[in-house]
């Protein structure tokens, strides 16, 4: 798909690439974190469901990396595996570990954190995809339509968990509230475009940060009403803004693990 590639102005193309890296890296990292839960979810049906969601999400990341490849940014697999932490544009929320420990040993991952992070993230992604359906870059608009259809099931899934756990036992409520606090601490850069804010907002590719935040809050109103709570405020992006390549140590270790095979043998069949 390269029609129109020649007519993109350098500023527009730069904004587009930056936005695509944000979308691709977000989905890539959060689905990696999701895949670490494999075999560890609370019950077998959940293992099937959440690994299926991670697989879909990895597919979405692959789509966004492919759009970058079509723009001449490099090979999709290389973009996913070989870029260093400081070149990544994902939100810090997407890179966070699932909890203490390593999945090959005896990890103590927190399911409450998984539910809250995935629900809040998926709702944010939904707001972005709804906006991208009107994007003036047609290949991105078409991808958003496709992603959106799968996202429907993801959102339904995490919303169900969210409402059930917050209406459950005292321990469940306590842990969910702790998880909400933890997730919101990292939520500042989810809707941030970082240093590219002006360029992206003027490009006509996607709605502005404030409009997306409003969309998220209004979509969250109903589920929060179901659990008799108020929708938390979205914090301002902190100094550590993933959109500008500022990340935690947790990203570096994730990249080391997930790219291990690819770095050893880029031609390996999976």
């Amino acid at each position: 798909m390269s029609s129109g590639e020649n007519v993109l102005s350098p500023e527009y193309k730069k904004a587009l690439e930056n936005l695509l890296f944000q979308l691709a890296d977000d989905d890539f990292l959060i689905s990696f974190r999701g895949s670490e839960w494999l075999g560890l979810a609370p019950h077998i049906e959940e293992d099937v469901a959440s690994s299926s969601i991670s697989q879909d999400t990895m597919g979405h990341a692959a789509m966004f990396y492919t759009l970058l490849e079509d723009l001449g940014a490099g090979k999709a697999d290389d973009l996913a595996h070989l870029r260093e932490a400081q070149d990544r544009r994902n939100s810090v929320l997407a890179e966070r570990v699932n909890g203490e420990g390593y999945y090959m040993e005896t990890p103590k991952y927190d399911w409450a954190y998984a539910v809250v992070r995935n629900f809040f993230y998926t709702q944010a992604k939904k707001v972005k995809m709804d906006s991208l359906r009107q994007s003036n870059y047609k290949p991105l608009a078409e991808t958003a339509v496709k992603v959106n259809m799968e996202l429907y099931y993801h959102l339904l899934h995490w919303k169900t968990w969210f409402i059930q756990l917050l209406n459950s036992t005292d321990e469940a409520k306590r842990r969910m509230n702790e998880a909400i606090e933890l997730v919101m601490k990292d939520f500042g850069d989810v809707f941030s475009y970082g240093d590219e804010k002006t360029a992206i907002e003027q490009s006509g590719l996607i709605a502005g940060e404030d409009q997306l935040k409003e969309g998220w809050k209004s979509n969250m109103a109903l589920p929060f009403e179901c659990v008799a709570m108020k929708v938390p405020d979205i914090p301002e992006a902190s100094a550590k803004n993933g959109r500008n390549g500022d990340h935690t140590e947790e990203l570096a270790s994730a990249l080391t693990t997930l790219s291990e095979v690819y770095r050893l043998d880029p031609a390996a069949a999976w």
Partner: protein
Amino acid sequence: MVSLEEEIRQEVYDALMGVKDPEIDTVSIIDLGMVEKVNVEGNNVNIVLLPTFLGCPALEIIKKNTVNAVKRLPSVGEVEVEFVFHPPWTSERITEEGHKGLRAFGIAPPPQHFEVDGSWHVDCPYCGSTYVTMENIFGPTACRSILYCKSCKNPFEAMKPVSTIM
């Protein structure tokens, strides 16, 4: 008078009827609604497919099987297979024949309608009973859900409905 290209196109479609979903060998990719277009130029063929789910690992296998099936045709020169995302694949694209093939495999075809709350219902592909429960919206593959028939006591799967109105 049918042109040579038209003849080749027809042969290609016939060959594609033999390309099955790698995991559901009773349904062809044509009946799944994955074949968007067959372009013929001279004796070179370009086939445009629509992916069902973006993360589906079967896509590469389907692509390979498609190339192999069409390459076998003596009248065909070069074969190219590409995936596009527009129009998006939706479960309404599965044909009546596809629905039969799914049922024969023990998979309920995707329902045509959603309830107002976004939920959906299918009948048991084995006994036809409507007395079924949803066990897991997510199933062994991205495109399937797991259900249970309370009448004939069989677990079964259903093809997930996906639509652009979601």
